[in-house]
Each structure stands twice: as structure tokens, then as C-alpha cells.
């Protein structure tokens, strides 16, 4: 990060290559489509490199990075709301970057319907609950790490995940 703070372009590129996978994964699951996720990723790294000089070496980079990711995701959704855009509702945005299916065609269709239902349920969650679920379920962050990323208390994270689980249970319950 010291070389990043000095504006070393090669250092920036190296940092980007190391960190972009999980930043993109989280942004894609949150935004629901690849185009918006790529905008978020670019915003995250431009913001990170622009403020590299204020990064304290005692802090953990991933902790700081998750906070930037969370802020950018929430800001991007707020901008989309102001533009009166409806959130993405399916898994179409995930197909192009997902691992290929290895099932029989009829099972693929059934599985695709389940995935669409799950994606809709996640995207229907309030944004902070959605972020908490993504960071916990898909990125394996602890409550303390999620609290740091969302700049809230651990008890707030407990509440977010509890409400998210209730919402998901309701959305995914068999009818």
C-alpha cells in the first residue's frame, strides 16, 4: 500500500489483480447484473487508489476494502433509485460469469428456476440486509468484519442477518 500511496502504477495494477475477484463477486451478487457490478468495481479501485495516502498501515487492507465495496454498492443502488431504475430480478447477469452446468438438460431447467427464485429473494431484501447476507453467506466474513464493512455495531449485524433470514424464509418457502 505504501507504493500504491506513492502512485506506483505497477503497484496499483498488482493490487487490483489480487483483489478484484472477490470485489466483483460481491458487487455482482448485490447489483444483480454484470454492467452495474463492473461500475462498482471500477469505483471501488479508483476510490482506493485516490485515497491510498490516507491508508493507515496498522489497518487491514481487506477490512478497508470491504468498507469501500459496501459504500459503493449502497451508493450505486441509491443512484439507480434516483434514476427510477428497477433492480435486476433474475440470474441472467450471473450466467456469463458462472461455472458451466454439468447436469442433464431437464435438471438444468429445474435448477435454473430455483436459482432465479433465490436471486429474486436476495434482490428483494433491503440493501443493508442484502449486503450482510452476501458478506456472511458468500464471502464468509465474521460478524465483526461485517460490522466494520457496514460501519455499524455487531448487534446491528445480528439484527440484519436475523431479519434477512426471516425474509428469505418467507420468500423461498414452498407454496
Amino acid at each position, binding site marked *: 500500500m505504501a507504493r500504491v500511496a506513492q502512485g506506483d502504477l505497477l503497484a496499483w495494477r498488482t493490487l487490483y489483480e489480487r483483489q478484484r475477484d472477490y470485489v466483483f463477486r460481491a458487487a455482482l451478487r448485490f447489483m444483480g447484473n454484470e454492467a452495474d457490478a463492473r461500475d462498482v468495481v*471500477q469505483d471501488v479501485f479508483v476510490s482506493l487508489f485516490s485515497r491510498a495516502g490516507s491508508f493507515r498501515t496498522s489497518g487491514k487492507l481487506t477490512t478497508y476494502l470491504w468498507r469501500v465495496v459496501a459504500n459503493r454498492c449502497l451508493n450505486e443502488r441509491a443512484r439507480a433509485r434516483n434514476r427510477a431504475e428497477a433492480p435486476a430480478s433474475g440470474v441472467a447477469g450471473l450466467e456469463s460469469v458462472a*461455472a458451466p452446468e454439468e447436469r442433464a438438460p431437464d435438471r438444468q431447467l429445474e435448477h435454473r428456476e430455483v436459482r432465479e427464485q433465490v436471486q429474486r429473494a436476495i434482490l428483494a431484501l433491503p440493501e443493508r440486509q442484502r449486503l450482510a447476507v452476501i458478506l456472511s453467506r458468500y464471502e464468509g466474513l465474521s460478524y465483526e468484519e461485517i460490522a466494520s464493512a457496514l460501519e455499524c455495531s455487531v448487534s446491528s449485524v445480528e439484527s440484519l442477518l436475523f431479519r434477512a433470514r426471516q425474509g*428469505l424464509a418467507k420468500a423461498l418457502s414452498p407454496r
Partner: protein
Amino acid sequence: MRCTTARKHISLDMDGRLTQDEAAALVAHLAACAECRREREAMGQAWTALGALPEITSTPDDWRAIAARLEGRRGMSGWLNGGWSWLEELWFAAPRRWALATVMSACVLAGVAAGARMSRELAPQPPLEALALAEAFGEFPAAGWIAVEGSGAR
């Protein structure tokens, strides 16, 4: 344990966040409450179902777009900050700091001296007629200058 507390503890238990006593109390409550058992089953199934989303294996490479935005920012701020950055770097290079301070002090003193000399050289001179009178009569007009009729001096 009340059901509202039990349901929150169900969520915490899924992440291993309960103490032994709390976990034991939850088990006891679930044994007696069918509604909370259903809630636990529904939450557990929903959480498991999240695994149905595909694993994301490919990340687009947007480095060129990021680099272009960063270069744009540096260009805009460069002429604000970069012009003095060499001075800032020189100042904070400790071994050169005293030498730099000495040079700057010498420049200031030289500037003051040059300014003083220039001010004497550029000070308004008495007109030629007054100088001639002073040379002829051995004295220099004390207050102001004598306006010699027809000389144009004022």
C-alpha cells in the same frame, strides 16, 4: 425463553454465536414450541438454498478503464500539486534541509540588499539646475528644490 428471543437465537445459532447456556436454553425451547421449530427449519432451508446460486468463476478485467480514470484525476490535480512537489520532496529530505534553509536565507538577504540599492538608485534625483547651483554656491537646497524660472522644474 420467549419466542421472540428464541427466533433471534435461532439465527445466531446458525452462525455459532450462542454461548453454551444460550444454546441449551434454545434447545429446551424448541423441544416445546412447534412454531419455533418450523421457523428454524424454514430459516435453515432458505440459508442452504442460497448455495444454489452459481459460483462466479470469471472476473472481467477493467484495469484499462480504471487506469484511464486515475490518469484523468492525476492530470487535473497535477498542476495544482505537482508544481510544488519537487520543493516538498527536497524539504523533507532531511540531510539537505539545513543546506536548503541556508540557501533560502542567503537568497532573502541578497534580495533585501539588492532592493535597498535599487531604491537608492531609483530615488528621485534633483534636477540638473539644482545640482549646478549647489556646485556653484556650495550648498544643496534643504527643503524641496528651487524652481528656476524657465527651467520647467517644479
